């Protein structure tokens, strides 16, 4: 009996924070760090896949910036001033890789863990709650995305493709864009029934990657199509990054940011409602 009372101090319950008092009991145990730790340990066995994520945007930057750039010369930048082609596509590739990484993790990876590995069922059998899982998974995705974005921005700096100190803000902007795409992707995945539905994800991501003013300016489209392109999220991410790395920062930046605030909020609300339904019914 006395042995129980003499538990080491580490095993004491964690301090009760604000979030813990706000949320209903059982949803959040304040232990999302354990989920991040689990992801980082699990990533050791797939380190090659994670490590290779650095290189895909770099290959695109070298091939397109150097090869296509030599054919096209300069293109009009965000303020109409001519910009070298490499400096034009680099922020676009940064935004696109933030989207691709986040969507991949939040759809394929999430579906695999949810339906096949049954990872979340196993986690819920421990003191962890669904909010721990959501915060932990998103936190890990952002750590990963942050490493990729830092690496890519460093390469951009080394190649002289950054012309403004505003580019420092490109890192948090990339993380926020990734968060919004991840939230929306996770919400969409919670409605998916089988792998066949993931063709729809491809169908959304690939055209956005190609047509969101990533590789050529918006001005090449006829006016009606310009409106259509501007309706999609990646266009706003590209415009945000391009404004920051070239230093053309104006009020329109807030508009692009607002798009992602709405998208992140919508995605988070839908995803958390759906997850509560899927995991705790």
């Amino acid at each position, binding site marked *: 009996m006395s042995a129980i009372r003499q538990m080491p101090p580490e095993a004491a319950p964690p301090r009760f924070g604000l979030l813990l008092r706000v949320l209903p009991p059982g949803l959040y145990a304040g232990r999302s760090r354990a989920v991040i730790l689990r992801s980082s340990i699990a990533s050791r066995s797939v380190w090659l896949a994670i490590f290779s994520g650095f290189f895909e945007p770099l290959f695109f930057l070298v091939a397109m910036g150097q090869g296509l750039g030599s054919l096209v010369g300069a293109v009009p930048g965000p303020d109409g001033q001519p910009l070298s082609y490499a400096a034009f596509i680099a922020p676009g590739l940064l935004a696109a890789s933030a989207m691709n990484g986040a969507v991949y993790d939040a759809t394929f990876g999430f579906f695999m863990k949810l339906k096949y590995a049954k990872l979340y069922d196993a986690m819920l059998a421990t003191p962890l709650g669904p909010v721990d899982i959501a915060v932990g998974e998103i936190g890990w995705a952002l750590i990963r995305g942050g490493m990729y974005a830092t690496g890519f921005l460093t390469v951009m700096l080394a190649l002289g493709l950054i012309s403004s100190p505003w580019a420092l803000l490109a890192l948090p902007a990339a993380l926020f864009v990734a968060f919004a795409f991840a939230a929306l992707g996770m919400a969409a995945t919670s409605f998916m029934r089988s792998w066949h539905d993931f063709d729809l994800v491809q169908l959304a991501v690939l055209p956005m990657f*190609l047509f969101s003013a990533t590789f050529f300016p918006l001005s*090449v489209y006829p006016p009606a199509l310009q409106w259509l392109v501007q309706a999609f999220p990646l266009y706003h991410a590209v415009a945000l990054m391009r404004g920051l790395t070239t230093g053309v920062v104006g009020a329109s930046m807030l508009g692009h940011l607002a798009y992602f605030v709405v998208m992140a909020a919508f995605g988070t609300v839908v995803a958390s409602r759906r997850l509560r339904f899927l995991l705790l019914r």
Partner: protein
Amino acid sequence: MTAVEAVRCTGRVLPGWRTALLVVEERWFWYRRNWRATAISSLLQPLLFLVAFGVGFGSLIDAGGRAVQFTGGVSYLVYLAPALLVIGAVQTAAFESTYPILSAFKWQRTYWAVTATPVTSGQLAGGQLTWIALRLTLSAAAYLLVVTLFGAMQGLGILVALVCAVLCGMAFSAPLVAFSASQEGEGTVFAAVFRFVVVPMTLFSGTFFPISQLPGLIQPLAWISPLWHGTELARGAALGTVALWPAVGHVAYLSALLLVGVLLSRWRFRVRLTQ
């Protein structure tokens, strides 16, 4: 007591090539029901790239007037269309030669079921590769049909380009099938294959711009890439600019890769299925 009657075997072992066709038939039977899932990756992807780069980016290039020196006077869309045919074939080949092969060995174990019948491992490997070739032909033909309606390709040269694209896809597929047949893990290595082999190959093989625009150090890498040889052949055939001896060289390189790949695949299938 009556004499024991000799039981006559009613089954008949088929000649090698017909057995390989049985494997193709099995794959086709599955594909007939599931082809829709492949339409996006095999057909829509090259078409979207064609619209984005051929039309969107092309409008920048054609307006600049710098492109004429390397496209030989045709528009960028026409320059790009045959190259994307080859990229589509190689990408489809890359997908068909990785996960489905490992799955048939490891997760679904259909290859073990097939070789429990009179079909040998060599015939199975041959049938599997024949199926991939058929699959590449189908999606390349569908792409060509759409692109011809676009007006981005014309003339009989495109049929030659189709053959070149399938040859190039198979020259990449056969060694990759041998590699996949040797994998024991969960297939995470394929992510690295896609990122370090397939993606760089599609970017640095003269599809979007001639490799002479690349830094001198990277150019020799393009020469070992089957995609560069396939692109040169297909573009030459479609635009009518192909010269005899370079074409012979490209075909010889691709055929050699294909032959080595087929031999390696048969060997890996035999080792794994008869151990």
